C-alpha cells in the first residue's frame, strides 16, 4: 500500500502515469540575425500544453505520444506550425522570420501571454519602442524610457536614477548580461551608460521577484545585449547633438562565431578646444587645455561549438572624464598643473551554455565588474632664481571590484513543471577612499598613502524555483532564495521565500498574487540626490545591518483584445534597516568612521498601478498610472516621526504612443505627469553672530514637509526614414518639453531687495529643447 502510494505520488509528480512521453527540444532564433529569442511560446495547439524559450533561446517540451500541432509564436515574428506524430525524442531548432507587416497581428495570443504568465510586477519594453521614443537632447536612453513605466520614477528632471515602488536608486540590481553595474550614470545622472544600439531586450522586475534574483530590495533591471549577427555583416550609427555612436556586428565564421562592437562618445570637449585655446593665449598661458567627455564601449563575441554548447564573452567599458592642463613659463621659471577627474565602470562576462540533455539546460558564468572614481592633481613648479623644483601629486581613488561565478540550471521535466536552480558567489573588494600623496621640493620629499583600508567580502546565494501547473487554471511559482554574506568576521544570512500565484478565470483574464522577501548587503553612501561619482558602495558591518524588504502584490491581467493588455496591481512593501546620513554629517571628512555617520530606519510604500499596453501594431505604446504613498522613519530625523520620502509621489501618469504612418515616417509622443516631490523648507530663521556681525540662518522643523508644484511635460519626435542602396538612413527631430512648462526643479527662499521681505523662488531646469540627429543602418 505504501509502495503504491509512493509510486502514484512520484508518477503524478512527473506525469508519466498513463502514457509514454517524448521531449521536443531545441533553440529559437531570429532567422536574419541568429539572435536567440527569449520568451517565445512553444505549444501543442491541440492540447494547449506548452512552454517558453529561456534567456538563451532554449526550450524543452515534453508531451504524450500521439498527433500534435506544434506551434511557435513570438511578438513581432511570423508563427510556425507543424503537424506531426510524436513518437520519439526530437530536436527542432527554430528560425523565426520577423513580421514584415506590423499591421498584421500574426501573434494571436500576445496579450493573452501576459494573462497566462505567473509573472506579475514585471515590464518588458521592446527595444524598438525605446528607440522611437522622443528623448532629451536626442540621446536615446533606456533608463529614461523605464522611468515611463508605472511604479518607476526618476529622481528629478533629466536624471537617470530609478526609484521603484518607493525604493531608492541604490536598491536596483542592474544587470548587463548578468553582470551587476554599480554606477549606471554619466554626467551626474543626466545620461545612462547603456547604448541602446547594443541592447537586444530588457525587463524590469518591480516585485514578485523569482528566486533566481537577490541582493537588492526594489528592482531587477535585466539588460540583455545583442549577440551579434552571425549571418551577415551589419552596422548602425547615429550622429547627435551631444554624442555619436557606431555599432558594427557580423559573423567571424558564418553561423558559428559572431561579434558585436558598439561605441559612443560625446564631443563637447573637442568642439570647445579652439575657443579655450584662444582664450588661454589671450591670457598669456603657454598651454591651457580643459574639457569633459564620456564614452561607452560594448564588445561581445560568441561562438557556437555545437548545437549543445555555446560560449559568449562580453565586455563593457565606460568612462567620464573632466580634465584641465595648464602650462606657463616666465623667463626661466615654469609652472605646470594637471588635473584629472575620471570615473567609470568596466564589466566582463564569460558565459558557457551547455544543453546537458533535452530537459536540462545549464549556463555557467564568470564575471568581473569594476567601478572606480579617481581624482588626480599634479603640479610642477620650477624656479631659476633661486633654483628650486617643487613637485606635488595627489591621487584619490575609491570604488568597488567584483569577481563572481555562477551556475544556473533550467530543468523542464514536463509541461507541469519548469524548475530553475543555481548557485552564485561574488567576491567584493570595496575601496572606500585612499589618497596617495607625493611631494618633493629640492631636498625634501614626502610619499605617503592614507585613507581607508580596502574591505573584502563574500556574497553567496543559492536558489531553487519551480513554475508549477497545479490545475488547469492554477499556476504558481514557488521558490526559495538563500543568501549569505561574510565580511570582516561577521556573517549575515537569510532565507527568502518567494511565491507568486496565478489563477486563470478564463483565457482573457487572470488574478495574480505574490509574496517576496529581499535582502541587501550593500549600501550606497551618497551625499546628495544626484548620482555622484563619489557615491561610495560599502558592505554591511557589525553595526550596520543588511536592509530587508517584504513585498505583497495582488493584481489582475486582462487581455482586452488580441494585442491590448490591461493590468491592475496593488502592492505593499515594508523596508527595514534603510540607510540615512545623520543630520549634519559631512561626507568629505578625514575620519574613517563612516559607520558613525549613518543611522538605520524603516520605510513603507504602498499603492496601485494601472497599466494598459499594446506592444505591436501601427500604433503602439502604453498608458500607466500609479497611485502611491511612500514614507520613512528614522530616529533623530524630523523628531523621529514618520515623514514622507523625498520621492513620495501621489499620482504618476505616463502616456507613451508610437505611431507608424508609413514605411518612411513614424512618430513618438510621451506625456508625463507627477505630483510634486516632497521638499524640506524652513519655516523660520534666526541670527548667528560671526566676526562681521549678525547674519540670518534658516531653521527647519519637519523633513519633507512641503510639496513642489506638479510636474508635467510633453515630448514629441518624428523619424524620417529613407532606403538607400547601402542601407537605411533616418533623420530624427524632436522636442523636449513641447509646451515649455516651467517644471519645479528646486525651491529656495531669497531676499526680495527693495520690498523688505523674502520670497520663495522656484527654479526650473529644462525649457523647451529641440533636438536633431542623423542615424543609419547598413
Amino acid at each position, binding site marked *: 500500500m505504501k509502495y503504491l502510494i509512493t509510486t502514484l505520488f512520484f508518477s503524478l509528480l512527473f506525469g508519466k502515469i498513463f502514457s509514454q512521453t517524448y521531449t521536443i527540444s531545441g533553440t529559437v532564433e531570429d532567422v536574419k540575425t541568429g539572435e536567440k529569442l527569449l520568451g517565445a511560446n512553444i505549444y501543442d495547439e491541440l492540447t494547449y500544453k506548452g512552454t517558453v524559450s529561456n534567456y538563451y533561446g532554449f526550450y524543452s517540451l515534453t508531451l504524450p505520444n500521439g498527433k500534435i500541432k506544434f506551434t511557435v509564436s513570438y511578438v513581432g515574428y511570423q508563427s510556425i506550425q507543424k503537424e506531426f506524430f510524436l513518437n520519439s525524442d526530437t530536436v527542432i531548432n527554430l528560425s523565426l522570420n520577423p513580421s514584415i507587416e506590423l499591421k498584421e497581428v500574426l501573434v494571436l495570443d500576445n496579450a493573452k501571454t501576459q494573462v497566462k504568465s505567473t509573472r506579475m510586477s514585471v515590464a518588458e519594453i521592446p527595444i524598438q519602442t525605446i528607440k522611437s521614443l522622443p528623448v532629451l537632447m536626442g540621446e536615446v536612453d533606456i533608463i529614461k524610457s523605464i522611468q515611463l513605466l508605472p511604479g518607476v520614477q526618476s529622481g528629478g528632471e533629466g536624471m537617470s536614477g530609478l526609484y521603484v515602488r518607493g525604493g531608492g536608486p541604490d536598491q536596483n540590481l542592474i544587470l548587463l548580461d548578468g553582470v551587476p553595474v554599480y554606477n549606471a550614470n554619466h554626467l551626474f545622472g543626466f545620461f545612462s551608460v547603456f547604448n541602446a544600439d547594443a541592447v537586444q531586450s530588457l525587463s524590469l522586475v518591480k516585485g514578485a521577484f523569482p528566486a533566481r534574483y537577490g541582493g537588492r530590495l526594489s528592482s531587477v533591471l535585466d539588460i540583455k545585449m545583442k549577440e551579434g549577427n552571425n549571418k551577415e555583416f551589419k552596422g548602425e550609427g547615429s550622429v547627435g547633438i551631444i554624442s555619436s555612436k557606431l555599432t558594427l556586428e557580423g559573423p567571424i565564421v558564418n553561423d558559428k562565431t559572431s561579434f558585436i562592437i558598439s561605441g559612443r562618445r560625446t564631443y563637447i570637449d573637442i568642439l570647445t578646444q579652439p575657443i579655450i585655446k584662444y582664450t588661454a593665449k589671450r591670457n598669456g598661458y603657454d598651454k591651457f587645455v580643459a574639457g569633459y567627455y564620456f564614452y561607452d564601449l560594448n564588445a561581445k563575441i560568441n561562438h557556437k561549438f555545437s548545437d549543445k554548447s555555446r560560449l559568449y564573452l562580453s565586455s563593457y567599458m565606460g568612462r567620464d572624464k573632466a580634465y584641465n592642463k595648464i602650462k606657463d613659463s616666465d623667463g626661466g621659471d615654469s609652472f605646470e598643473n594637471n588635473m584629472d577627474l575620471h570615473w567609470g565602470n568596466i564589466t566582463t562576462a564569460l558565459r558557457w551554455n551547455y544543453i546537458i540533455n533535452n530537459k536540462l539546460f545549464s549556463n555557467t558564468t564568470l564575471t568581473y565588474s569594476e567601478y572606480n572614481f579617481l581624482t588626480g592633481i599634479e603640479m610642477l613648479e620650477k624656479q631659476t632664481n633661486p633654483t628650486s623644483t617643487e613637485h606635488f601629486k595627489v591621487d584619490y581613488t575609491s570604488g568597488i571590484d567584483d569577481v563572481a561565478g555562477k551556475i544556473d540550471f533550467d530543468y523542464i521535466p514536463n509541461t507541469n513543471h519548469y524548475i530553475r536552480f543555481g548557485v552564485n558567489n561574488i567576491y567584493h573588494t570595496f575601496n572606500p577612499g585612499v589618497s596617495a600623496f607625493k611631494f618633493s621640493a629640492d631636498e625634501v620629499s614626502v610619499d605617503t598613502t592614507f585613507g581607508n583600508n580596502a574591505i573584502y567580502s563574500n556574497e553567496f546565494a543559492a536558489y531553487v524555483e519551480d513554475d508549477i501547473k497545479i490545475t488547469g487554471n492554477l499556476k504558481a511559482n514557488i521558490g526559495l532564495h538563500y543568501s549569505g554574506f561574510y565580511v570582516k568576521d561577521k556573517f549575515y544570512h537569510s532565507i527568502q521565500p518567494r511565491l507568486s500565484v496565478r489563477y486563470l478565470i478564463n483565457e482573457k483574464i487572470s488574478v495574480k498574487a505574490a509574496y517576496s522577501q529581499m535582502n541587501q548587503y550593500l549600501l550606497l553612501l551618497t551625499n546628495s540626490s544626484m548620482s555622484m561619482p563619489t557615491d561610495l558602495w560599502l558592505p554591511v558591518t557589525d553595526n550596520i545591518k543588511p536592509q530587508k524588504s517584504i513585498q505583497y502584490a495582488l493584481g489582475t491581467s486582462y487581455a482586452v483584445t488580441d494585442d491590448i493588455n490591461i493590468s491592475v496591481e496593488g502592492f505593499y512593501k515594508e523596508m527595514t534597516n534603510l540607510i540615512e546620513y545623520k543630520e549634519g554629517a*559631512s561626507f568629505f571628512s578625514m575620519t574613517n568612521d563612516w559607520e558613525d555617520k549613518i543611522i538605520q530606519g524603516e520605510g513603507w510604500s504602498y499603492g496601485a498601478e494601472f497599466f494598459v499596453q499594446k506592444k505591436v501594431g501601427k500604433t503602439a505604446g502604453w498608458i500607466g498610472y500609479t497611485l502611491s504613498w511612500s514614507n520613512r522613519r528614522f530616529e533623530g530625523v524630523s523628531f523621529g516621526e514618520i515623514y514622507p520620502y523625498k520621492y513620495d509621489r501621489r499620482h504618476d501618469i505616463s502616456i507613451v504612443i508610437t505611431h507608424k504612418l508609413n514605411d518612411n515616417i513614424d512618430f513618438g509622443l510621451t506625456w508625463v505627469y507627477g505630483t510634486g516631490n516632497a521638499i524640506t523648507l524652513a519655516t523660520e530663521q534666526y541670527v548667528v553672530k560671526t*566676526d562681521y*556681525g549678525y547674519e540670518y540662518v534658516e531653521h527647519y522643523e519637519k523633513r519633507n514637509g512641503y510639496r513642489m508644484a506638479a510636474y508635467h511635460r510633453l515630448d514629441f519626435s518624428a523619424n524620417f526614414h529613407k532606403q538607400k542602396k547601402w542601407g537605411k538612413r533616418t533623420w530624427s527631430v524632436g522636442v523636449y518639453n513641447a509646451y515649455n512648462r516651467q517644471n519645479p526643479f528646486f525651491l529656495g527662499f531669497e531676499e526680495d531687495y527693495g520690498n523688505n521681505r523674502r520670497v520663495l523662488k522656484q527654479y526650473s531646469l529644462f525649457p523647451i529643447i529641440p533636438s536633431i540627429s542623423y542615424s543609419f543602418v547598413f
Partner: protein
Amino acid sequence: MLIYLDMYKLLVKSFLLLLVFSSCSKIVDIDIPDNEKHIDVIGLMNSDSILKVNISKSVSILQSTEVSYFNNNSSNTSNIDFVSNATVKIYENNVYKDTLSFTEYGNYIANFKPVVGNTYKIEVDVPNCEQVDAENNIPEKVEILSIDTSNVSNDSFGDDEDILRCEITFSDPPDVENYYLLNVSGKITYSWYDEYDDSLYVMVDSSFIDFDTNDPIIDQDAKIDNAIIFNDDVINGKTYTLNIEIDKYYSDSTMLYFNLFSVSRDYYLYRKSISMQKYGGGPFTEAVTVYTNINNGVGIFAGTNKSTYSILARNTDYNY
C-alpha cells in the same frame, strides 16, 4: 587632500549652478504656519572679558534678512527681534552666580569674567515662553609656538600674485579632543605723500584679514567669514605647522595678529554647520540644520580661549 575633492566639488557646483541659473525661475506662494518662535541665545565666553550674551527671537522665514554687517551695535539691526525683557541667570559649577543686566540690542552682561575650567550654566526666562538653558566651559589655551613667514611670487593656485606664506606652529594636547578656530586680524597702516600740501598722511585701519589655505587638514567647507575651523583628528598630540597664505596687499606695513582659538566642541559644530548651510545646500543636498546646544531654543553658548601671535609685516617696495 581635501582640497582636491573640493576642487571637484567646485567643478560640480559650477556646472550645476550654470544649469540652474541659465534656466527660468519664478516666485511661488507658500503657506507658512504661524508657529511659536524660538529663543535664540548667543553667548561666547572667554576669560579676558565680562560674560555677555545676546538674546533674540526667531522670525518668519518670509521676513527680510537685511542686517547691518558693520559693527555689532549698529542701529541697522532693525530686522532682528531682540529680546529686552529676559531674565538671564548664570550658575558657576552648579552654584548660582549672577543675574545678567540688560544693556541694549538684546545684550545682557554679567559682573564677572568667566574662568577656565569652571562649568557655566545659563538659564533664560522670557515672559510667555518656555525656559531655555545651556551649559559649557572655556577650554584650555593652545599657544602658537612660532610663525614663519616668507614672500612668494606664486601661490599654489598658479595665479601670478605676491603673497605672504605663513607657517603657524602649535602643539596639540594629546588625551583631549581639541577644536580650533583660526583668524587673522590686522592693523594696516597706509601712508602716502601728498604733493600739493607737501605732507605725509598716515591712516590706520583695523580689520580682519582674508587668507587662503590648502593645508591638508582643513576642510574647505569649514572656512567662513575669514576664519577656519578644524579639529585634531589627524594631528592629535602632534606639533603641527599649518600653512596659510595672505595677499601681500594687506602687508603694506601691517601689524598682523594671528589668533588661534581653542574652542569647545559645541562651538565647532555650530560654526561648521553654519558654513555648511551657507555653502552647501542647493538642489542636490538635503538641508542642513545649524547645530545648537541651547535646550528648547537655538543658538550657542560656548567658550573660547585665544592665543595671539603678532608679526609686523613690512612691504619693502614702499619705503617712506
